[in-house]
């Protein structure tokens, strides 16, 4: 075991902060290989290992401050018997930023052995007492002792300068790598010392070992105070590894729960327990519109239930539809200045009338419609869709549903499903136009125009592009039901990105509409008409057949997209409706 010490990185630098570890416990390290990065107030630099082996311990965590001369890491030599003597200076690689002193090592005091045998090589024992001439630069092989700062008999600490050495590159102080009392200066001032040679001997009491350094084994070493090299390891692996998955700590349930809850914020999907998700699907509740009260704000079963049972907002203040859907563009609004003295339009004074106060929803609708008409460049494109295949698909699906005791699906959710799929391919139509930019929304929040006793409302199915035809159908039915019962939630009208209007349900044969601001397009669904239609027979001949035809109308904002873009999207919807089987709708 040996330590890699925090080197002095500048004359006035006394400490540094570990900024990162480049080697982890268990990693093999070579001499000169960077093991960590340290930041000081002067420099940021990599600290190189001064010993080869395996990193056994990081003695400081990242962001901890380490004093110069303190051990940074413990390294176990991979093969102690053949490792270089611990105090031998590392032939340090390219020195990092102005290293006045290379990192040095001392034997780990904790590894004192009671081994009575002297270490095998003489130099090994002596090295424990010797302060060696460090390598002061890549090309530096020697230096000249310019002055001694410690005299024989002076106490010295690890990291304390003992002499000054001049090389052809730098003049620097050499720090002791051993604590104790200076026992011998091996070179006089002015003498040249080779890199790696002992400069001085430091012992516990200032007495020289019985045998001089680099001579006989130090049989008389004062082991108590002077670090000694551990005995060569016995046979067997000496590289410490992590034990195989042994974890004695008790499982931290609170921390684990916290971790689980933290995953919630990382996903955009509404967080809900599986049970809440299931209940929401059963009740037709849009999870995105439910405020979660569970841990981390996730939606619980209770939240879904509460949301489903939410009472209607006060009648006086219904949620304003974000842009109530299609009303004929010809809806007149009385123009200011044309009214007579009693408030009637000029010229109507002799017409009998009833004055009916408008509802708030009517006024909101009026404002939205006229604003949309004023802002957007409305344009409508239409295609005829042959619903022959869809009629069969729907009949098949509804047979299954009836057998399961579930309500039949109308054509609307099928059209909605095909439209959502097409919008994924035509994101400019699922967007908001702002002159300087077009916001393509990442989900299809589908507004459905619903005719209610209180007026037109456009509730929103959140994330409709992820829904199957069945969940769309159930979602639409649920929304419509809640509106008619006067129980919509505050989020039911928010954040629509595309709207479908279904005037066909009351008999319209064409369905241009007013765009629901701030959206780009609205799909109008008129009634399905059985019409004589040219069809191609199996033999390639054409014939006239009676087919169920739907004339879909896509009204779009010509500021945002061009007619070709919108028509391509509409044709894509048609293609799906004419080709999809049951599975595609799911």
């Amino acid at each position, binding site marked *: 075991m040996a330590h890699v010490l925090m080197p002095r990185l500048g004359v006035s630098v006394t400490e540094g902060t570990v900024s990162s570890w480049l080697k982890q416990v268990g990693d093999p390290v070579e001499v000169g290989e960077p093991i960590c990065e340290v930041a000081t107030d002067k420099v940021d630099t990599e600290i190189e290992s001064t010993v080869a082996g395996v990193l056994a311990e990081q003695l400081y965590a990242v962001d901890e401050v380490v004093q110069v001369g303190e051990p940074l890491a413990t390294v176990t030599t991979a093969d102690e018997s053949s490792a270089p003597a611990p105090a031998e200076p590392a032939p340090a690689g390219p020195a990092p930023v102005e290293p006045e002193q290379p990192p040095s090592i001392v034997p780990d005091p904790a590894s004192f052995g009671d081994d009575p045998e002297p270490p095998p090589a003489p130099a090994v024992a002596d090295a424990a007492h010797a302060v060696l001439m460090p390598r002061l630069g890549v090309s530096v092989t020697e230096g000249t002792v310019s002055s001694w700062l410690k005299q024989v008999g002076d106490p010295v600490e690890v990291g304390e300068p003992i002499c000054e050495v001049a090389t052809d590159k730098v003049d620097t102080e050499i720090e002791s790598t051993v604590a104790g009392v200076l026992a011998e200066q091996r070179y006089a001032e002015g003498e040249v010392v080779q890199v790696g040679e002992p400069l001085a001997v430091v012992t516990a009491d200032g007495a020289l070992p019985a045998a001089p350094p680099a001579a006989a084994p130090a049989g008389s070493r004062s082991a108590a105070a002077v670090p000694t090299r551990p005995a060569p390891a016995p046979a067997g692996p000496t590289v410490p590894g992590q034990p195989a*998955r*042994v974890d004695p700590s*008790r*499982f931290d*349930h609170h921390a684990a*729960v916290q971790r*689980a809850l933290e995953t919630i914020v990382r996903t955009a999907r509404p967080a809900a327990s599986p049970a809440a998700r299931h209940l929401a699907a059963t009740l037709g509740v849009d999870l995105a519109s439910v405020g979660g009260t569970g841990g981390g704000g996730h939606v619980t079963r209770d939240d879904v239930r509460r949301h489903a049972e939410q009472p209607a907002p006060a009648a006086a203040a219904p949620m304003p539809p974000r842009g109530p859907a299609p009303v004929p563009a010809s809806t007149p609004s009385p123009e200011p200045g044309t009214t007579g003295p009693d408030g009637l339009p000029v010229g109507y004074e002799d017409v009998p009338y009833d004055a009916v106060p408008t509802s708030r929803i009517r006024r909101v609708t009026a404002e939205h419609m006229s604003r949309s008409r004023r802002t957007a460049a409305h344009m409508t494109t239409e295609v005829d869709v042959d619903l022959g295949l869809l009629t069969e698909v729907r009949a098949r699906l509804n047979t299954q549903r009836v057998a399961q005791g579930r309500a039949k699906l109308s054509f609307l959710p099928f059209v909605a499903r095909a439209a959502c799929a097409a919008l994924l391919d035509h994101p400019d139509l699922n967007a908001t136009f702002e002159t300087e930019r077009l916001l393509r929304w990442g989900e299809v929040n589908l507004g459905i125009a619903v005719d209610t006793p209180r007026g037109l409302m456009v509730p929103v199915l959140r994330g409709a592009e992820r829904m199957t035809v069945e969940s769309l159908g159930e979602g639409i039915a649920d929304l419509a039901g809640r509106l008619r019962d006067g129980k919509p939630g505050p989020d039911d009208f928010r954040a629509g990105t595309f709207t479908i209007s279904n005037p066909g349900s009351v008999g319209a044969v064409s369905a241009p509409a007013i765009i629901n601001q701030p959206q780009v397009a609205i799909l109008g669904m008129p009634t399905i008409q059985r019409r004589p239609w040219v069809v191609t027979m199996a033999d390639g001949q054409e014939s006239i057949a009676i087919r169920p035809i739907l004339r879909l109308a896509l009204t779009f904002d010509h500021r945002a997209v061009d007619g070709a873009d919108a028509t391509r999207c509409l044709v894509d919807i048609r293609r799906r409706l004419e080709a999809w089987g049951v599975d595609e709708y799911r």
Partner: protein
Amino acid sequence: MSAAAATTDRVIGYSRAINEALAEEMRRDERVWMMGQDIGRLGGVFGLTRGLLDEFGPMRVRDTAINETFIVGGAAGAALAGTIPVVELQFADFLFTAADEIFHKLAKWRYMHGGQFTMPVVVRLPTGVVGGAGAEHSQSLETIAMHVAGLKVAVPATPSDAKGLLKAAIRDPDPVLFFEHKGLYRVKGPVPESDEHVVPFGSARIARPGSDLTVVATGLMVDRALAAAEQLAPQGIDVEVIDPRTLVPLDIDTIVSSVERTHRLMVVHEASRTAGFGAEIAAQVHERAFFALDAPVWRVCGTDTPLPQDPDLEQACIPSTDEIVTAALALAAI
């Protein structure tokens, strides 16, 4: 099958219940015999077989050398010869010593040989921590037994189940690893006096009904789960404790239907956390009842360590009542 349960309130110990099951089954069927180290004259290292040598003689209650390979291997051969061996290993940990005999001969031979014979062997395995027996004498290895197809695995937690499951094990045509918890040997409880008190395999016991959280526990952990339930009740968490009683076959239906009511599940086991039977139950419940869950299936388990020999440290390595309470309260935050 436990119709006789109402006939008596007799209270006896878990050890006594096992001893009764052995004696009754040997009286009932002369093909049943026993083998194990010191089970005869000594009456077993834990005293479970006391008195049986006297009643049934040395041909049917056979002492063996300290040789698990021989004990289980001999039982495998004796089963092929038409007898019903019930063997005892002194510690469940030693099933590793008899690993080939258990995991190959007992578990596989019926299937390797086209069903020409069955392997009606019961291996009694004193299991779990008992207070400082150390890492090689304290493990809970039921999951390993559960993982190898061909074995049945019983983990009785009460004297009544110890008796009823052991009788079912002896009557079963397949090899059964019978994990008797050493920490329960001295526990007493009501046991029906009937000779026909047989607890069928694969039927979980609802040890405590509850409505807010299902806790599945086995062996020593059942009582700790029940104690935790009592502490949690005043805090508004009504815990249902389910003891599966056998891990193979596993009564997952009872667990799933409980989770469908409580919407939450914790599995408590003494065995190490990683790849314990808690993970298997969690996976099955996620597969079967995902949409019933309000929270992730939670595990309260032993540590992933060799068990220390110091009894206090040892307890620190397996779930305590306190930890079960802590985990339940933590899980309530989800």
